[in-house]
């Protein structure tokens, strides 16, 4: 009985393991391998790892793709810009999303499903369409400028589109639900008597929030921030449609290297470096989560 249970458990775990192996680990290894080659005009467009030279088998590792990334300042600046955009957007999502998640978690059991539904509702429309809609709102003769002009609040249209501001709006708008949902899942579990206990011991509401609610919602904050930060770093569509033409984000650089320059090794190196950058926040998150699990045990 116990044996078959263990087998069953292993079988269930095998499905996601196989999935990750086939669709994540193997493609990753392919990309990793391409990043250590050089461009050549052939199919595939990069040098092989193993080659015959003068009758001998050579193992050829090229660092040129990586060294190239650090010779052209455009790459470093794109990395830094992407990190900045992702960090600021994550903070904005946190400051907007936390009160919303808190309000939903504290709302009555009858209204809660409705509010959650409203958070998820935008997903029913295509992501691309929603970003296009922001062009219609932000452009020079778009909705926002026209309203402000007709109210005589401004004399000439504000330059909203193709700015950092537009990128922030687009990312915060698109990723806000990914911040709210994990935060809600965390805040909803909080025991309200703890806040009563804090008040009883003399803590004013804000202080009780800072000492009780906030520390206990750290895992939710970490999860939500990660879900916003990671895709935001590699975001391609939003900055392309709404952002500055003179400052690219790293996702756009990657796609340009791949499709425009047909430089697979450099594109792969860019991808590997993004991954290395993202490992740090993921490890931080795991630490927070582990500590929380210890408390709950």
């Amino acid at each position: 009985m116990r044996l078959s249970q263990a087998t069953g458990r292993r079988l269930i775990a095998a499905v996601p393991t196989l999935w990750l192996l086939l669709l994540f680990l193997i493609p990753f290894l392919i990309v990793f391998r391409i990043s250590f080659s050089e461009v050549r005009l052939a199919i595939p467009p990069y040098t092989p790892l193993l080659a015959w030279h003068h009758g001998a088998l050579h193992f050829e590792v090229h660092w040129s793709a990586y060294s190239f990334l650090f010779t052209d300042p455009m790459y470093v600046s794109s990395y830094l810009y992407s990190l900045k955009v992702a960090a600021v957007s994550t903070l904005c999502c946190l400051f907007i999303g936390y009160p919303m998640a808190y309000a939903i978690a504290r709302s009555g059991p009858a209204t809660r499903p409705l509010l959650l539904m409203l958070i998820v509702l935008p997903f029913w429309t295509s992501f691309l369409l929603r970003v296009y809609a922001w062009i219609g709102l932000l452009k020079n003769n778009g909705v926002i400028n026209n309203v402000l002009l007709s109210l005589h609040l401004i004399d000439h249209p504000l330059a909203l589109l193709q700015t950092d501001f537009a990128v922030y709006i687009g990312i915060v708008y698109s990723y806000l639900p990914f911040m709210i949902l994990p935060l809600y899942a965390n805040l909803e579990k909080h025991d309200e008597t703890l806040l009563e206990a804090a008040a009883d011991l003399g803590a004013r509401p804000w202080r009780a929030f800072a000492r009780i609610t906030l520390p206990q919602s750290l895992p939710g904050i970490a999860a939500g921030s990660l879900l916003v930060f990671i895709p935001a770093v590699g975001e391609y569509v939003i900055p392309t449609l709404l952002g500055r033409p003179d400052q690219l984000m790293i996702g756009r650089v990657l796609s340009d290297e791949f499709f425009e320059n047909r430089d697979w090794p450099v594109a792969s190196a860019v991808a590997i470096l993004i991954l290395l950058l993202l490992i740090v926040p993921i490890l931080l998150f795991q630490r927070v989560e582990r500590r929380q699990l210890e408390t709950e045990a």
Partner: protein
Amino acid sequence: MSSEVPPPAAAGSAPDSAYVRIRDVSKKFGDFAAVDHVSLDIRRGEIFCLLGGSGSGKTTLLRMLAGFEAPTTGSIEIEGQDLSRVPPYERPVNMMFQSYALFPHMSVEKNVAFGLEQEHLGRDAIRRQVGEILDIVKMGDFGARKPHQLSGGQRQRVALARALVKRPKLLLLDEPLAALDKKLREHTQFELLNIQQRLGVTFIVVTHDQEEAMTLGTRLGVMNQGRIVQVGTPSDIYESPATRFVADFIGSVNMFAGEVYANGGEGLCIRSADLGCTVRAERATGGAQGATVWTAIRPEKIQITRAAQAAGPPAAENTASGTVKEIAYMGDMSIYLVRLDSGSMVRVTLPNVLRGTERPIAREERVALSWHGSSPVVLTE
């Protein structure tokens, strides 16, 4: 239930006899009155137990004292200060929650220090006071632990320390022993009494457990359906319950309907068809001739003897005969369920004083029941 019986013993004690004054407090949730015109005086340094079943309003009353709920009408004063508009974080009142509500992300020390930190005391003063109170509850060695690393009894002590460290004028305890197992409860009960006496803090304890209320309470207030039904010392309440509800709620009782047929100098005479005999209640007064009343007799106040041993002709009053139907041996005592000749069942308890020297009364044996004239309590409502 119109009349609230005032505690007769309460009159003429210290001038601060009303340390906490609850005046005509009601709390309505929609149309439902959770607490219904309650007035109570609580004395300095006493342990007052609010006893009642679920939904009796005792917890709502406690939450109003803590400031988590605002009374719909009425006022609450401590030492003459009206607390009606004082938020919980400014009240000189602390509460020990039923779930303990310890902060899971803080160590024991941090939990206890929390209240003092809100008063902006210096770090050294906080450390000293936390250390003192943790020693009092015998948790001095556990300061660095997190709540999830403690047993139920240890958590209870930390919760008590956290609530006491601010030296509140009034400590509210919501079912303080409910989460502990039986052995630990008894032990903790006496320890709680000890700590209360040492610190001299006034306690209000809410409980549904009458045993807990009797051992802890200086005085009890029995609540039912949002009202205080009776206030008194544990023995007042047990020996002289004011209503059938109280008699039934506290301890077990045999209750029989009857009719008053004489009200003379030697007490009240009641004829009860249920009991199959007449009852003379020496202590009872009131009850007009012909009125329907209830006679309540505690099981331990009834003597049980073999019918054969009963010498002479059976007395006319305060005796009944029947057959033993069930015997429950509890070790320290035995419970006999006796079916009277009238058909009613009576519960009798008998301490097992001797160690099996006598042949015990067996099942299906004929027995005579009798009680002293001071034992029956006559209730009109």
